[in-house]
């Protein structure tokens, strides 16, 4: 469990963060807060500016404008940053000829951590038996675990993970979900970037939605689900009649091929059809959150709505 005092100061703040690469605006005036005790997803399509934003937060990329702080301090002003912030940025951040243990020993030595810390971090991430193997022989999943072990060396209150599920097999993804969840439950601040909505849906409490370098939404995942609504697809031999019934009940409905797409829960549609004795051949819930995600990310030019999804800070 992270000490309360550490958690209290572990809020991530981005203020007007902007980055230009020549004439390309990679990140555009992002303002957001990430709070302790929850998993915050930094969600957006590839090339949206997630990695650049995270690298600015971590002092690896200089912002063109704006500031980013962790616990009120810029990253490069943190004393012993490894004890405050852990980061997993890329799977290729290892010398292939170095053993996993030596990789962590290098970092632990530079950070003046206790000698036993690297082995403990490897054991915690399930790599204890592979400590003396060269990283070049590791699978992608093992490298991701090694990245997490490196991030956790200093037992930090803040975790920043950039696309941590990339390349992981289903078992690895499942393990990672549990690991990240536990970190947040411990009171840590966990910021995870991802382009995969399905992953975010199963992990995150809060979502920062980014597209084309701009923050489109900052919202609790539950609120996003509520706004997106729920829906289903129906196949019936009498689509016109069912359509009329659903419209009369106030639900949005449209014909899509030989099915009806309905803005209502499958249970509600089923009950309505039964009430009117309409035969259904098929009734499937649809992933409306995904539709909402694509709808939102395709309309990035709405800065006035960037923080209007939920009035409370992130």
């Amino acid at each position, binding site marked *: 469990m992270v000490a309360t005092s550490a958690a209290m100061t572990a809020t991530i703040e981005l203020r007007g963060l902007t980055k230009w690469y020549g004439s390309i605006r990679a990140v555009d005036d992002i303002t957001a807060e990430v709070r302790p005790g929850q998993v915050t997803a930094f969600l957006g399509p590839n090339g949206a500016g997630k990695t650049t934003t995270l*690298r600015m937060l*971590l*002092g*690896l*990329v*200089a912002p063109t404008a704006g500031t980013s702080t962790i616990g009120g301090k810029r*990253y*490069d002003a*943190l004393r012993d*940053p*490894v004890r405050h*912030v852990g*980061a997993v*940025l*890329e799977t*290729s*951040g*290892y*010398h*292939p*000829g*170095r*053993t996993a243990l*030596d990789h962590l*020993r*290098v*970092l632990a*030595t*530079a*950070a*003046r951590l206790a000698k036993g810390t690297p082995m403990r971090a490897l054991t915690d991430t399930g790599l204890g038996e592979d400590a003396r193997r060269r990283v070049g022989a590791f699978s992608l999943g093992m490298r991701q675990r090694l990245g997490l072990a*490196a991030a956790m060396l200093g037992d930090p209150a803040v975790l920043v993970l950039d696309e941590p599920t990339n390349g992981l097999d289903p078992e690895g993804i499942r393990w990672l979900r549990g690991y990240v969840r536990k970190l947040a439950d411990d009171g840590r601040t966990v910021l995870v970037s991802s382009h995969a909505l399905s992953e975010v849906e199963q992990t995150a409490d809060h979502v920062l939605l980014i597209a084309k370098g701009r923050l489109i939404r900052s919202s609790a995942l539950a609120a996003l689900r509520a706004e997106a609504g729920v829906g289903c697809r129906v196949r019936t031999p009498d689509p016109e009649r069912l359509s009329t019934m659903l419209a009369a009940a106030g639900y949005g409905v449209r014909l899509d091929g030989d099915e009806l797409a309905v803005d209502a829960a499958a249970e509600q549609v089923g009950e309505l059809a039964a009430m009117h004795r309409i035969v259904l051949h098929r009734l499937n819930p649809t992933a409306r959150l995904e539709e909402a995600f694509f709808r939102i990310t395709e309309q990035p030019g709405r800065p006035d709505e960037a923080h209007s999804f939920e009035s409370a800070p992130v």
Partner: protein
Amino acid sequence: MNALVRAELLKLRSTRTLAWLLLATVAMVVVTVAASVPSASEPDAGLSFHESALLTRLVGISFGVPQVMMVLLGVLAFTQETRYGTVSSTFLVEPRRNRVFVAKGLALIIASVVITTATLVVSCTVSTVFISAKDGNVTTGTEFGQVIAAVFVVMMLYGLIGLAIGALVRNQVVAVTAALIWQTAAEHLLLDALPQVARWTPVGATYGLLQLGPIVTTQGTLLDAPIGGLLLVGYTAAAAALALVVAPRRDIL
């Protein structure tokens, strides 16, 4: 700073790069000495089998390849971090990047002492064996101590120059290629074509510091050892200063 230096030394020790470079260095020292001794019997070789400085000259010559290796070690100390992406974690642990560069420099200085000592042992031993086998002069004149001190300075400075090149160029292939062309071709061509100019270059200054004038040029144009040493220190300081100004400001992508 101590922790950073220890971490950089661990980086050097924990891959096979240093071991291979050291092995290649020692092997090339043997080859260089073996190739140089027979030429000592030739009348116009600049070396006499009976002059008191024969051992000193052979030791000086034998450090040609180790100098190149030391530059490569310096280049790789930074470019490998860029190539494999470990530079991100390095700067996450110590965001004050100038401190990392200084730590790398100090680690390279320590490594250069070890490599130079090992090279000297091999060079002196092999040179003595080859010279003795032909009944040559194996005495150590007054210059011997000066050259021994000079090779430590040269190896240390070349490691730092390599680090500066690696920090400035970043692309490992480009940096290594540039360093090799500079040391093994460009300056030697210049030394042959324009010795009056070449004596002011880093390699020319090095030859002056190692007192190799009678061997590398017949025109007696090399700088005196103290001047050559000061010039080489100046080149190293300029390269390091440029690296410290330019490299830390770059984005780590």
